[in-house]
């Protein structure tokens, strides 16, 4: 049988299957718009805070003003007592309470270092950190002002005092994703996961469906063609569709959501092709194991959350038990996310991600072999029955 006949017959099977088309075309496009939605505003907007100013002095007012001026904090109310403030917190009117103690200004003048108390809701991920950052910034600025003023009192000239208030300072630079954008953080990784999962589901439904038909004794190309022809035709069909998807994601979607893309295009696509090949081989192998069409969607779906968190881009690899990461490395998405992020987001060279490329090559070989072996076995088994 000619390869082109196999290719056409398989393409017919794939494109007349609504569930597969819905997943590998509809799903891929839909997800590319749906997933970035929560982060569309990119970073956390300012958080509501209440202040209890028990001092009501010039300096306490200046601190409230500085708090409000930080991008993280929005002073929405002032309460007269700690209880009122905590009440507002419990009714989720505010996310944090700032308390400036009585005699604040007096203590400052006496040099006994009064303390500002901040209590913040830490139930949510970014809220606490942001408020802490804002409060620190406001207090440090005010503190520096006071120290400079003290130095001036000791006859130091202003130009000197501006430097002398601290022995050295910190210059903090964000190397990549400079604005701490959540879109930049989550989307480049999640997109790789979406590509993998939809591809696996598509191949899983397809493979399971063929197993069903073979069991039912239906006649079809999957019985006539040679195994390597079947394998190759699936690589060509699914590979081509997802190569287009990949161009759509890395090109259109990245532009659309303003995501950094600094990789060299040849390097990016070379790595991309390795990723797609590994995923197609993995999908063919998984599909050959599923006894029916409907097993793929649930199995792949359940794996998504555990997979995305074992990759190591959210929670650091150093804190994940190593056996978890080793399991995850068997799935193409793990080396792929690392490789793509380093190439396209962090500006590494292909040389730098060689290891991940190598893992993908090994996966292509192993899953290719397993897929071939299992399809062969399924066919022989059904021939005999």
């Amino acid at each position: 049988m000619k390869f082109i006949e196999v290719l056409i017959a398989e393409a017919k099977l794939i494109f007349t299957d609504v569930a597969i088309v819905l997943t590998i075309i509809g799903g891929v496009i839909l997800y590319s718009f749906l997933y970035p939605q929560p982060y569309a505003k990119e970073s956390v907007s300012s958080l509501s805070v209440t202040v209890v100013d028990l001092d009501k002095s010039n300096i306490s007012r200046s601190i409230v003003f500085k708090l409000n001026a930080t991008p993280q904090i929005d002073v929405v109310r002032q309460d007269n007592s700690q209880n009122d403030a905590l009440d507002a917190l419990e009714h989720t009117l505010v996310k944090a309470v700032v308390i400036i103690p009585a005699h604040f200004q007096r203590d400052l003048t006496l040099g006994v270092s009064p303390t500002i108390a901040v209590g913040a809701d830490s139930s949510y991920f970014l809220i606490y950190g942001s408020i802490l950052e804002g409060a620190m910034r406001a207090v440090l600025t005010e503190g520096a002002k006071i120290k400079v003023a003290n130095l001036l009192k000791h006859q130091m000239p202003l130009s000197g005092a501006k430097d002398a208030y601290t022995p050295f300072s910190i210059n903090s630079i964000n190397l990549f994703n400079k604005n701490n954008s959540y879109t930049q953080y989550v989307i480049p990784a999640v997109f790789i996961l979406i590509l993998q999962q939809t591809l696996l589901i598509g191949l899983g439904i397809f493979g399971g469906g063929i197993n069903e038909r073979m069991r039912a004794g239906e006649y079809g190309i999957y019985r006539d063609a040679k195994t390597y022809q079947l394998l190759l035709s699936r690589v060509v069909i699914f590979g081509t569709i997802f190569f287009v998807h990949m161009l759509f994601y890395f090109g259109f979607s990245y532009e659309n959501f303003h995501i950094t893309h600094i990789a060299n295009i040849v390097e990016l696509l070379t790595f991309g092709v390795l990723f797609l090949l590994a995923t197609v081989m993995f999908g063919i192998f998984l599909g050959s194991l599923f006894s029916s069409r409907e097993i793929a969607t649930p199995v792949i779906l359940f794996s998504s959350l555990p997979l995305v968190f074992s990759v190591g881009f959210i929670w650091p690899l150093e804190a994940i038990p190593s056996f978890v990461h080793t399991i995850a490395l068997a799935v193409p998405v793990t080396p792929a996310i690392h490789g793509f992020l380093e190439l396209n987001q962090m500006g590494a060279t292909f040389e730098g991600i060689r290891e991940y490329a190598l893992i993908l090559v090994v996966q292509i070989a192993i899953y290719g072999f397993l897929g071939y072996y299992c399809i062969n076995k399924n066919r022989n088994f059904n021939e005999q029955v």
Partner: protein
Amino acid sequence: MFKAFSFAFFHELQEIKNSWYRLILLTLLPIFSFGFLVVIFYKGVATELPIVVVDNDKSDISRRVLFNIDATATVEIKYRVTDLSSALNLVQTSQAYAIVEIPAHFKRDILLQKQPKVTVMLNTQYILIGKIVKAALLESIMHSAGEVEYLKNLVTTQNSEESINAITPIGLQVTPFYNTYKNYFLFLVSALLPSIWQIFIVIATIVSFGTLFKAGREREFFSSEYIGMKILGKLFPYTIVYFLLGVGFVAYIYGTLGWVFQGSFTVTFFAIFLTVIAYQSVALLFFVTGFDYARSLSLGAVYTAPAFAFLGVTFPVDSMNGFSVFWRDLLPVSHYMELQISQANYGVDIFMELDKLLAIALFSLALIPVYFRFKQRLQG
């Protein structure tokens, strides 16, 4: 009528017993995925995160600064290099999460009171890791600056308390309410488990009805009598199991692991029960669009898979756009999650939770169109 319910209920139990696939969906798979997520975050805190340093001064002060950094639990100086480009290379390939560079003449400039700058370069592509590393580095370096300043002040004041107070004229005391900030286990796992749990409820419901229709046995099973009762009876075994799984993860997190739970378990468990029914109703709504097994699974996947991102636990709801808030409201689990957090952390009374409970309960109204679609299908 009750006979129809119990007929369907026991019929379904029999089906489950005969299908390893459904048994796995109800037991092994949920428990395995819960376990996997728990294991990933079990440590809860990140320690010894690798960083790289470039010390261009090599004085006793620069060594002191680096020593203090290495002494923190959070970061570890894994690499010491002499030039920035090789340091950058380590960050680009994720071998180090940050660079600390100490300028040349660091000590001399300190003595001359010229305020030299220690440069900290962070990999903020990984926002969470970047934040953890940044907090640890800034704290440690500021502490080192304080040490130097203390010694300097001591020379002039000859009084240790006075020299300390002069370093930080204003103290800052930060109290995290409800969750000790640096532990991410509670943050993530308490939201991840419900997110994966809701996927199971939807999938199992569709599997149960899908296999019946795919095998063409629906008329035999429903025999066009008491259709509504039979739908409920068929759902009920799953309602029980997923309710118990829901109770299980809450009991595990707040009971076994002992995280603080301020509120009422009764209210939370009631919400879990309503959430299971809500998802079963929505799953059937997907199913009746075409009574097609594979296609309704795809719909269920689109609906449940992205839920975690919309919960508002990782990214605050206040910062989401209108569409996301709308989509979030369409997911029972987001209302459940709000309730779980407010019960666990704030311990508010049931009257303040009524809106959330009502929101979850409303999803079961989907059973009305489901009922009519089934009737139409089976009797038409």
